[in-house]
């Protein structure tokens, strides 16, 4: 018999529906704009040289000027950093389409990010209080009237998936009825210098799963999802999820995809019948090979898989949130979107990468995510028929 523990703590009475969402990337400031550009197979990755002595690098940057203009129309009397502006506009856009009451003690705000306001950290200057992520989260939560103490998830590139998994667990536990998750990261000198030091940035826009992939393209963006106990108009729910560690290396993924295999195995709950996999697909040699091993070990390698990173790069702490929203809309539209950048198959174990967008009924889908520190996370989404 299945008890709450064995089936991931999920019962018919505890459902977590995605009731509203917003995405901001180089492809637009609304989910609709971003998806319409994905439909057209447009990439927002372009050549920029915003920092240091680097030659132009392919990076996905948001339209900061347009974001500032929109923010001034909402909160004209407060000043915000670039990071905060992105978070606030995304949160505002998701909340305005929702009936969720931010001021209810049963509503929680979760911020997911890797480096937050890191650009405030300057050599030789005492850091301001806004460098602390909990202060940033409280400032943002205060603007929208959230009264529950905000939670900040800071767990490398799996932060977004973990934050949504945590939201589902809070709802299952009965502590909250609605959880608003905002994932945000911006491209800064700090992050560019870091990934450059690892030699993991590509020379051309990233090519996830391609034989000639040579690294990731950094991206900035924000994604907000509202996850609610009660079903509203839309009908995609988070049914289960898990995280796991490789226990192998802090900066390189496991050669066998151990942690990702375990996370996905626990998330799938012995039901490997899925219609689509939204992979992490950063386009580094190691990540994509590792994912191909994990997917083959799970024996789901025939299932269509894509990476959304060819459209707007690797958005770090926002990636999981943005890509779960895109998985949700793939399901609502019954569309398999092209894995942009993939031309010639070239991962270590065979995958069914989507090279041409196509219609397919999508009822149950898997989102994968991996990051530095050997961390991995997986979530299963289902359509409520």
């Amino acid at each position, binding site marked *: 018999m299945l008890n709450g523990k064995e089936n991931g703590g999920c019962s018919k009475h505890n459902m977590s529906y995605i009731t509203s969402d917003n995405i901001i990337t180089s492809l637009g400031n609304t989910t609709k704009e971003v998806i319409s550009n994905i439909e057209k197979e447009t990439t927002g990755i372009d050549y920029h040289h915003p920092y240091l002595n680097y030659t132009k690098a392919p990076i996905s940057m948001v339209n900061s000027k347009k974001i500032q203009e929109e923010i001034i129309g909402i909160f004209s009397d407060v000043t915000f950093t670039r990071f905060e502006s992105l978070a606030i506009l995304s949160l505002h856009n998701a909340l305005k389409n929702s009936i969720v009451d931010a001021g209810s003690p049963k509503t929680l705000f979760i911020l997911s990010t890797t480096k937050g306001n890191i650009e405030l950290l300057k050599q030789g200057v005492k850091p301001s209080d806004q460098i602390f992520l909990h202060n940033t989260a409280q400032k943002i939560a205060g603007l929208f009237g959230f009264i529950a103490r905000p939670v900040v*998830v800071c767990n490398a590139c799996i932060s977004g998936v973990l934050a949504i998994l945590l939201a589902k667990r809070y709802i299952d536990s009965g502590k909250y009825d609605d959880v608003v998750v905002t994932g945000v990261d911006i491209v800064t000198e700090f992050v560019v210098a870091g990934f450059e030091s690892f030699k993991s940035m590509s020379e051309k826009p990233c090519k996830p799963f391609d034989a000639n992939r040579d690294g990731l393209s950094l991206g900035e963006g924000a994604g907000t999802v509202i996850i609610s106990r009660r079903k509203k108009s839309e009908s995609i729910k988070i049914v289960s999820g898990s995280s796991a560690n490789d226990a192998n290396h802090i900066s390189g993924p496991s050669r066998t995809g151990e942690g990702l295999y375990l996370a996905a195995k626990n998330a799938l709950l012995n039901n490997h019948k899925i219609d689509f996999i939204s992979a992490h697909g950063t386009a580094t040699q190691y990540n994509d090979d590792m994912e191909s091993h994990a997917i083959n070990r799970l024996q789901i390698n025939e299932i269509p898989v894509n990476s959304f990173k060819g459209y707007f790069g690797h958005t770090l702490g926002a990636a999981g949130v943005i890509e779960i929203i895109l998985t949700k809309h793939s399901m609502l539209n019954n569309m398999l979107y092209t894995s942009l950048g993939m031309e010639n198959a070239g991962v270590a174990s065979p995958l069914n990468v989507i090279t041409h967008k196509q219609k397919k009924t999508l009822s149950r889908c898997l989102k994968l995510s991996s990051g530095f520190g050997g961390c991995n996370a997986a979530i299963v989404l289902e359509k409520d028929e």
Partner: protein
Amino acid sequence: MVISDGRELYSDVSNPDFKSFGKDLYRKLKCNYPKFFKMDTLCKLTFLANEFITRDIDLTPYNKDKTAVVLSSSSSTLDTDTIFTTTIHAIPSPAVFVYTLPNIAIGELSIRMGWKGENLFLIDESFHPENIVDQVNMLFTASQTELCLTGWTNYLSPTDYHVSLWLISEHKNVQTRKLTSMELLNDFSV
């Protein structure tokens, strides 16, 4: 000062500087783990506390795939972020950059212990025991977790740091106490 299960194990008030205090503790623990010297301060601090907790406990009954690590912090990696910032215009080092993510501390413990269970790193303004109780209870209810290392780890400067960790089992045994916010707060405030 090091306190384990209410007993003061080690104290050196004349030398509170973590740079030397940490090394002293490492030597005292005799753990022979050279990777320690490559870690940043937040990882070293967390690693040492975990060594004090786990060295005298038989963990063989617990499944390593079902052992979770949930940590929280206010400082996050500010110390290493500051160091990395000074190198951006010189030669940035990947060996420093990787430690600008706080969950690397979870990764280091996972490698040391072989733990492959759930991971979560949270940033909070201060230690909130009720949050830890919530997180651990949710993991026991909603995942396969049967053992969880959890707590607070914070490193601001060589003289301003604090780590408090607990190992929490899903099942009762002779050594266990009941998990409550009050118990955690009492331990934390010693």
